């Protein structure tokens, strides 16, 4: 074949979450000779490593980033993109509403495909032939109650701007042919018609490809689907009288025990060494309380302690979670964000002094 008649190498960008479905979708494309690069979006709520990085109970867990690991297994390049700032609007104002918790799945999918669309448009503008031709996702009809229904599939394609450049290889045969299929870049017959929550077909396909190690197959990708986490986020908005957050806020919701004794302040109390170290990093932003006369946790005060009684109340609660909980007195240091510190001595709070209702989340 002369150079002039050689077929153009088609290239796709795949949304890779780190789970099995996107992994299979990429594999199916690779089998068809498509060159794939992965993109993984960091929303701030991703479950990835965060908690295992700091908690002892997760010490022996693989501290691998699943998206990177998947990319390595598949031999594809991976772009990890921080969309946490732009993503706020998705979480705060989801046009299509929330799922069971504060997970705006449908808007999230639209947003991510839209980001990928912008990427391929830009890449085509700058890279010409080296640009990307279409977008691939691991979506399966009927897999998720809200974002992956048959009716929502076209909504994602249209509202994201990807239109028929969005191919879902695992359920493509249940959907109208997309551009890559119509143009013959991929063979529709070799795509799949998976639907529903039954994961057997995916498992069988994984086996066919010889993939036997993959991250938890369904869900678990994002803290917004977690009830306790969503409660903490809702509590944050309520306390601030406004729905907004910064990246630090949502990181801190993943760490420690969160207690709200008064509407205007919350304590974030570390549960172990790793969390202690993590919270240390925030002492320049918050008033913090830590025990001096015995080993104990570090706590951040999110909000204001408005009186001496409240300082004592907060210190007594922190003392309750220290080694000195059975003592008559514990001395703690209360340090302001600017570093000005003083000591207080209190009687540790008793179990009944810390009602369950204070537990946020």
């Amino acid at each position, binding site marked *: 074949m002369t150079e002039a008649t050689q077929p153009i190498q088609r290239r796709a960008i795949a949304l890779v979450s780190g789970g099995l479905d996107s992994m299979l979708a990429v594999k199916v494309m690779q089998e068809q000779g498509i060159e794939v690069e992965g993109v993984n979006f960091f929303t701030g709520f991703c479950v990835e490593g965060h908690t295992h*990085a700091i908690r002892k109970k997760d010490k022996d867990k693989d501290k691998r*980033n699943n998206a990177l690991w998947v990319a*390595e297994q598949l031999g594809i390049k*991976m*772009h990890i993109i921080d969309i946490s700032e732009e993503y706020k609007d998705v979480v705060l104002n989801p046009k299509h509403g929330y799922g069971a918790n504060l997970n705006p799945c449908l808007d999230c999918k639209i947003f991510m495909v839209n980001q990928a669309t912008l990427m391929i448009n830009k890449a085509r503008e700058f890279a010409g032939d080296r640009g990307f031709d279409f977008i691939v996702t691991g979506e399966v009809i009927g897999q998720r109650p809200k974002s992956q229904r048959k009716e929502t599939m076209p909504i994602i394609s249209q509202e994201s701007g990807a239109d028929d450049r969005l191919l879902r290889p695992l359920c493509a045969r249940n959907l109208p042919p997309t551009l890559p299929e119509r143009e013959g870049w991929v063979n529709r017959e070799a795509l799949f018609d998976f639907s529903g929550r039954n994961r057997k077909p995916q498992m069988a396909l994984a086996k066919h490809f010889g993939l036997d190690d993959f991250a938890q197959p369904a869900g678990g990708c994002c803290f917004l689907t977690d009830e306790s986490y969503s409660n903490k986020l809702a509590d944050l908005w309520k306390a601030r009288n406004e729905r907004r957050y910064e990246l630090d806020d949502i990181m801190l919701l993943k760490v420690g025990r969160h207690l709200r004794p008064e509407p205007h302040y919350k304590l974030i109390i570390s549960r172990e060494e790793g969390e202690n170290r993590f919270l240390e990093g925030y002492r320049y932003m918050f008033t913090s309380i830590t025990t001096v006369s015995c080993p104990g946790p570090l706590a951040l005060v999110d909000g204001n302690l408005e009186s001496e009684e409240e300082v004592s109340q907060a210190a007594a609660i922190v003392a309750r979670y220290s080694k000195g909980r059975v003592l008559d007195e514990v001395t703690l240091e209360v340090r302001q964000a600017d570093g000005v510190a003083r000591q207080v001595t209190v009687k540790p709070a008793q179990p009944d002094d810390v009602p369950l209702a204070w537990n946020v989340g």
Partner: protein
Amino acid sequence: MTDVIHELDTRRLLCPMPVIKTQNKVRTLATGDCLRVISTDPGSLNDIPAWCRINGHEVLETGEQGHEVYVLLRVGEDNGALF
């Protein structure tokens, strides 16, 4: 001649931020440049080398110092910038 070693401080950031910061920094560097990334997230010891392998960069050294970890890498031929 000693290589110029760029430094990147990702202390206090958790996965995947150290990788994202590394990726974004590498995109500003030239082939052959060296970058030393310091992190307090132990996961960085897996993730940054994995990211390097995927994207064709060489890991020269990794290590731990107290609660910190570091990765020294050399930028490969393609720094990964899309545009």
